[in-house]
């Protein structure tokens, strides 16, 4: 900014250059916030490497709890279930969200568009506990009627609340896209399908990938809706952890948390760079 030049002209404030943007104390609070956001995670991660049984007394470094979590059959089972649900939910919701994004962007506003927006964003507005309870009731009805108690209920629930998370980055990508490219394709005698397949789809791909990853993370992290919807013996990793946290805690839970954190941060970093790759 040109503040420096302006500040230099001010005679009355010789010591600190005056900046119109500076607010005293704001930077301090901000730094405290950033520290506070991350600091609590460190004891959790550190104790996952504790050699002892406790999550309060440090007894030396070891991989022991990672090994025990890895060998724990129940952890393995709930992790696989979480991954299966997240894979299905993110896959289906991204496909649906991609279609919906194509139908709602780059078009003259049409009647009922608001209805579509409200429907798609509904999972973001309704508290999770309310959705969870409503699904519990609804799925209980279906379970009684059909006798089916499989994983499809969880997948359906996750798919629904993942749709807005998949939709938003795809829509953002589409809105930033140059419409003339498709017009050019059409001018060069591409059929609508060819134009879509060869021009639109490759251009929106980063948005689709980002949307799918977000949906995956959101599904993988869900506690409340899963806790209410799951049938007996259908714990996912988060609901298993929730159960464990209310009992005597061993560093094994720290190890699982740290591993899950690592996966999330890795995915987010990938999304960060994907969404920055402008073109």
């Amino acid at each position, binding site marked *: 900014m040109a503040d420096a030049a302006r500040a230099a002209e001010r005679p009355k404030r010789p010591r600190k250059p005056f900046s119109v943007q500076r607010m005293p104390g704001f930077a301090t609070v901000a730094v405290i916030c950033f520290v506070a956001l991350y600091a609590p995670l460190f004891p959790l991660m550190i104790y996952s490497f504790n050699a002892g049984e406790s999550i309060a007394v440090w007894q030396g470094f070891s991989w022991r709890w990672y090994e025990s979590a890895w060998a724990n059959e129940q952890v393995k089972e709930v992790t696989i279930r979480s991954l299966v649900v997240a894979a299905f939910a993110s896959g289906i919701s991204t496909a649906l969200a991609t279609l919906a994004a194509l139908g709602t962007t780059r078009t003259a506003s049409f009647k009922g568009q608001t209805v579509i927006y409200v429907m798609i964003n509904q999972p973001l507005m309704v508290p999770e*506990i309310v959705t969870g309870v409503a699904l519990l009731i609804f799925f209980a009805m279906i379970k009684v009627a059909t006798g089916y108690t499989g994983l499809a209920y969880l997948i359906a629930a996750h798919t629904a609340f993942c749709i807005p998370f998949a939709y938003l980055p795809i829509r953002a990508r589409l809105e930033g896209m140059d419409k003339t490219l498709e017009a050019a394709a059409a001018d060069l005698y591409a059929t609508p399908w060819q134009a879509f397949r060869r021009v639109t789809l490759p251009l929106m791909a980063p948005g689709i990938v980002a949307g799918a990853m977000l949906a995956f993370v959101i599904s993988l992290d869900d506690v409340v809706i899963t806790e209410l919807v799951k049938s007996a013996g259908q714990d996912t990793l988060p609901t298993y952890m929730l159960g464990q946290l209310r009992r005597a805690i061993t560093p094994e839970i720290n190890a699982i948390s740290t591993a899950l954190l690592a996966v999330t941060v890795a995915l987010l970093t990938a999304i960060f760079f994907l969404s920055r790759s402008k073109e």
Partner: protein
Amino acid sequence: MAQPTDDARHGHAEREAARRRVRANWLLSAPALAMLAFAASGPLLIMLVYSFLTPGDYGGIVWKFSGEGWFQVLFSRDIFDETVGLADAHLTIFWRSLELSILTTLLALVLGFPTAYFIATRPREQRALWLFLVTIPFWTNLLIRTFAIMELIRNEGVINSILLWLGVIDAPLQMMFTEGATLVGMAYVYLPLMVLPLYAAMDRLDFRLVEAGYDLYATRLQVLRKVILPLVKPGVIAGSILVFIPSLGAYVTPRLLGGGRNMMMGNFIELQFGQGRNWPLGAALSITLLLVVMLALVVYVKNANKGGAGHG
């Protein structure tokens, strides 16, 4: 959708094309809408019906109309003489939820405002990185972040260990299972939801106006109150709503940090479908919560129309 749009606007052919495009838009959106109707919106209507039915003995319902579910939201009958009184236990829970949600919102605002301002005043190329640092916790598992707070404030936790070691206290402070623990936990967990929309509003802030304020001899506080705050008000409202709504329906954080004696709405609703075995009451409570949330959203939409804030 991907048809070549002929920009010349003449004739009914144009109108016919527009109509076809609208139909295509609906067809494209239909699968997503169907999924949402099946596993998000539709079940809410069924819940509304359930709130007017009779509870079954072992959970579930009996298909017989009853207003009892809604009656019990606020009132209770004495089991001996059938006198009707206000359900104090329920009111306490409602009040606690409201109080803690408002306090959480305020705490997040006090911390989040300077943080968002700090990010918005960084050089442009640095901002994405600072913003990313706020986003990581936002997407990180809420359970893990609550667990992290548990580790800090437990009786054998980090804070008590340090204080004991320093000799400041002789016995561990009881911080877990208090309302304060829930408050701190929720503020920690939802802080990014405050910072992101605030930043979105501040990013558009025209600092020439701030400068004009200083040129007209305003003090820093005056500039903040009279220039900056009114300009970023949509962001303040968006952030507050985004923190308030999940706080009001919070389940995991109050359950783990507040414990059974400091239940909030979310836990109380869940209880009706577990040990409480009163599905109609649970459904009525859920709809009550939903109505409060909708009210907050209406306030938001009314205000946002002026500035159009919010992220995503």
